[in-house]
């Protein structure tokens, strides 16, 4: 399964690695996935999850903060992609934090303490994994807007949480993958939260519907902004890729606009 030709998303993310020698290219990077009501970006998370748990990198660990779906959902979805989450969970490679029903205690203090406790949990997982010589740790948050709701709209605390997680990426070389919904913030005048997230992100992936509406063979388009790619000469530049996608049960087809046969 993994020997398949690399797809456009992997290329855009720099995940293509012919010799399988380089370390996980997303380490120390923040990936922000933005989607809309019409087009869900959850499949990008599933894809990254599958990549991070692939058998080639048996030293990698994923910490998954699930606000939006129960474990059974991810298990079924990933199984169809060829990745057994239950087994990975037993191997201590996949840590699933079920936050679907979690409520932080009421009040300002409660929100802060809840987030602090959650962060403490993540940090503990990350640092123990780090000591066990795990090569790379991926933290996935699905999805961030629900975390805001869980914290009853305490945006400052949620942002603090994000900054702490960001600090983990530089301390331990983790990668951080966050899903958020772009259209929630489009009507706010100065949406601090999404702007800060976009600022922190090294890779920004936007899933949008086509302007012409949805079709059965094109489910939407992805725009991947990869900040700071270093080429051989050592100079850095931004890379923007844009392509269409079609989500299927066992994977996603990516193709350039108009090239679908």
């Amino acid at each position, binding site marked *: 399964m993994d020997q398949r030709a690399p797809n456009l998303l992997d290329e855009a993310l720099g995940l293509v690695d012919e010799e399988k020698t380089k370390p996980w290219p997303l380490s120390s990077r923040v990936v922000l996935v933005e989607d809309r*009501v*019409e*087009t*869900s970006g*959850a*499949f990008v998370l*599933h894809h990254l999850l599958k990549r991070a748990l692939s058998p080639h990198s048996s030293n990698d660990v994923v910490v998954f903060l699930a606000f939006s*779906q*129960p474990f*059974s*959902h991810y298990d*079924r*979805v990933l199984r*169809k992609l060829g990745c057994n989450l239950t087994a990975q969970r037993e191997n201590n490679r996949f840590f699933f934090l079920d936050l*679907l*029903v979690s*409520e932080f205690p009421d009040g300002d203090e409660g929100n802060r303490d809840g987030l602090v406790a959650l962060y403490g949990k993540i940090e503990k997982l990350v640092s123990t994994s780090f000591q066990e010589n795990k090569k790379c740790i991926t933290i996935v948050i699905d999805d961030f*807007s*629900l975390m805001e*709701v*869980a914290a*009853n*709209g305490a945006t400052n605390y949620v942002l603090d949480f994000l900054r702490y997680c960001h600090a983990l990426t530089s301390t331990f070389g983790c990668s951080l993958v966050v899903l958020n*919904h772009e*259209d*929630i*913030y*489009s*009507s*706010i005048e100065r949406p601090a939260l999404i702007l800060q997230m976009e600022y922190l992100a090294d890779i920004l992936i936007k899933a949008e519907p086509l302007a012409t*509406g*949805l*079709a*059965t063979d094109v*489910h939407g388009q992805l725009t991947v902004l990869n900040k700071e790619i270093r080429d051989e000469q050592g100079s850095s530049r931004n890379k923007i890729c844009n392509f269409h996608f079609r*989500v*299927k*049960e066992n994977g996603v087809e990516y193709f350039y606009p108009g090239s679908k046969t």
Partner: protein
Amino acid sequence: MATSKPRTSSFSRNLATVPSSTPGLKYGPNGTIFISSGIPDLDKILGGGFPLGSLVMVMEDAEAPHHMLLLRNFMSQGLVHKQPLLYASPSKDPKGFLGTLPTPGSSKDDKSRDRDPENENGLRIAWQYKKYFGDNQHHFDSNRDVKHEYCHDFDLRKPLEKHFISGQHIDCVSILDSPNLAALRDRCATFLAQFPRNDSSISSAGRIAIQSFCAPQCKYSNMEWDMLSFIRSLRSMVRSSNAVAVVTFPPSLLSPSFSRRWQHMADTLLSVRAIPDEDKEMAKLLTGYQDMVGLLNVHKVARINTQVPVILDATTFSIKLQRRRFLVLESLNQAPIDSSSGTSYGTSASCSGSSKTGTLDF
């Protein structure tokens, strides 16, 4: 029994776990179980109905009560199947609303007589052209023979018989005077505790209907984060139980950003709209315009246990009352240029995909 009819796919689950004596439950793809929305056409559009564990949100038209049609049929269908119901509304006497629920079509005989030939016809065409259809239609067609058990046609002019309503399994809540949402949350939690989800067996399914959730006469209607937090907890509670919650809300009363958040919470997102009475342009453009009472938009279809989005042929449907009794949904048909009578567009052609060419989307 028809409910446990084996299907051809090797990936389908062992179907023996649903007792065939449970009416109103139907297996869908990916290990989901559907209950009916109470509108046969809507079930068809959504690929089988509302999956258990999903949150359905209906965006109201602030000027027309079309969301009540959906809500009534949803509640009635549950009561007819003897599924427990929790109904919350901002009115003073929510129990009184039960008196307005429609009854399953007693004129079934003459009704099925004039619909059946069309159904048969549709089925034959569906088999011939099966390769052009998505999985949804195929799935629906394979279950078509259980439709009468699973989903009824409701006669909107006759109230539901008393014995359905007098059962013990109806819980009515008025959200008018409650200062916060803690009470409603507790009611929902105790209600949903009756239907824990365990993989082995399902005895019954619950239905929660919440009408005009953010109505301004409710005291909490200015506490946007609290309402959002309630919806989040309702969604997560429903996820882990064998129940479906339908929440209607007027999005115009929420700030745009919060309205978006609500829409993201929904698994299935619908909206209803009234159509202006004397719109000559529209009347010229669409067949059967004078019979339409409103428009239904399908924005999002629940995808539980899958990452594949459901793409419909059309997302806008007209709501019509057939013989002023039965609610039907049809995809919009462009009027023929030489204005012969539009009645040739049969009722069952609505979303079978055969009327693709005339579909008009807004």
